[in-house]
């Protein structure tokens, strides 16, 4: 779809805006509706729009599949680490109060970090799912032969 001028120009205009809005939803999630999940999906949507216009090859040049896989695990590990930090500083799992002296700042720091982990995981998993489906075009010709029914 790269040849279609309207699509290309609109996409080029929209992709940065979608990403910017995703980041806004991500980092404003502690004050307004939103958070890691929604931001992650939006961020991935920007990448998917890029792939729709420029093709999967170009999309994977921006972020290789292996990187998505590592990021999806890294995001959830960040979540877990912040949770463990609370335990190590003498509190409960996911207890943010011990993180900083000011209780409000501590809660804010904790939730922002945890939600960032969620955002990274969700964005990379959505991109991974999209990549897997986008790749499958070649296999569709094969007939479906389940060996056993009941």
């Amino acid at each position, binding site marked *: 779809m790269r040849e279609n001028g309207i699509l290309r120009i609109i996409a080029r205009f929209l992709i940065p805006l979608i990403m910017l809005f995703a980041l806004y939803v991500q980092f404003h999630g502690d004050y307004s509706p939103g958070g890691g999940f929604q931001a992650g999906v939006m961020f991935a949507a920007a990448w998917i729009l890029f792939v729709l216009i420029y093709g999967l090859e170009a999309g994977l040049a921006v972020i290789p599949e292996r990187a998505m896989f590592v990021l999806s695990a890294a995001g959830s590990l960040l979540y877990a680490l912040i949770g463990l930090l609370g*335990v190590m500083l003498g509190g409960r*799992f996911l207890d943010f109060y011990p993180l900083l002296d000011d209780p409000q700042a501590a809660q804010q720091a904790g939730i922002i970090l945890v939600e960032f982990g969620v955002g990274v995981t969700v964005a990379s998993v959505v991109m991974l799912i999209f990549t897997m489906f986008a790749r499958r075009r070649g296999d569709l010709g094969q007939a479906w032969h389940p*060996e*056993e029914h009941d």
Partner: protein
Amino acid sequence: MTILEWMPFSVLVPLIAAPLCALLPGRVMPWSLAMLAVIASAAISALVLPAAVDEPLRYAFGNWPPPFGIEYYVDAVNAFLALLISAMAVVILPWARKSVNQEVPERQGPFYALFLLAMSGLMGITLTGDAFNVFVFLEISSLSTYALIAHGQRRAALLASFRYLIMGTLGATFYLIGIGLLYIATGTLNMADLAERVPEVSDTRAVRAAFGFIVVGIGLKLALFPLHRWLPGAYANAPSAVTVFIAATATKVAVYILLRLVFTVFGVEFALDMPYREVFFTLGIIGILFASISAIDQPTAKRMLAYSSVAQIGYIALAISLVSVEGLAAGLVHIFNHALMKGALFMAVGAVIYRLGTNRVEDFAGLAKSMPWTMLAFVLAGLSLIGVPLTAGFISKWALIQAAIAQDNWVAVAVVLVGSLLAVIYIGRIAEAAYLRPAPENRAPIREVGPWMMVPLWLLIAANFWFGIDTSLTLDTATRGAEVLMGVGP
């Protein structure tokens, strides 16, 4: 750290190890990390059990006080089950290594990550004291189980996994609708808090509908007859190691959550007002007879054992329909003993698949000569399944029969005896093929499996006999758990 502060880590260690495991390359490293994680989880569960029997342990996540925050609430019932799940995982993983190398040769990092997720999901359902948190962990364990089943070698595994996905999602949705109705009626999701508030509103249609949705939703997860249709395909087509693990743990956790919600949250009197007894009694009896008869003419050993699992769920449903301390204790003890016997049976069949590549019943012919120890283990575990004295299976059936006699429920006694006779037939089919029929002449010579598979298998066989003789851990803890559920005793 105190035992209370360690307790949630029996869920958290496998949960956190899972994403790490997914990134590890090769075969040795993911397996080793998974093994370490489940050993840690089992060690913590073993330490928690004695503490929780004395007094319930309550752990508030993020230091948000319940009922506002999520808490883990661990007493005799769920500490017992958590130990069962994590100990089974410790026994199964060494067995799984060889079998997984053969059946899932590539990308073992993600495979073991899914295994850890499934296990931590089951542990989470067991330990949590929050009804919505149950749903979250239910989804964690179910989604990873669907993916694990889809790893099966044949394409039928995809179909079985998809079928399970549809039924499992329906079940989870029904559960969620039920929890939603309860939340509307009471304004809380914490189970202990729900238990206090439900009686005030129990005479409303919303709460009755919630009870119905929750029982049907969990019934699907439980594979309670007639909601069992997903189970045989899923068990038969999953990789052997996955079949062993889910057969030993997954449906048991669903029984636990059913007991917890019906008896702790809704309360015994509410359940007796609803047709709880009649439904579980009838479905349990039909389930035992129907599934045992179906098991007899299944073409493969895995499918036969899967139908037998549906029948065992019938025994458990029958036991918990008696609504007495003895009945619930029989149900809880059968959860434990059935995990031991079905784990051993599926391991023996998995060892045959490992060597022979097939598990059709006629292919067992003459196997006792080439794989004597595996087949002996199969027969011994089969005796436990039938309920021969000195085995664990006898203890749970004896407890169930006694509970039924105490209520003069002779129908239940008769059905349990008939079910055991049917088990003799279907276990006997395999034993007859293995011991009495000659091996086909064109079969290539096969050897017995190595110690990686043999030691876990015989550990479970030994456990089957140990808990058939010494019942202090199983029956006493189960009785204590049943007292907690019925709200009697200390």
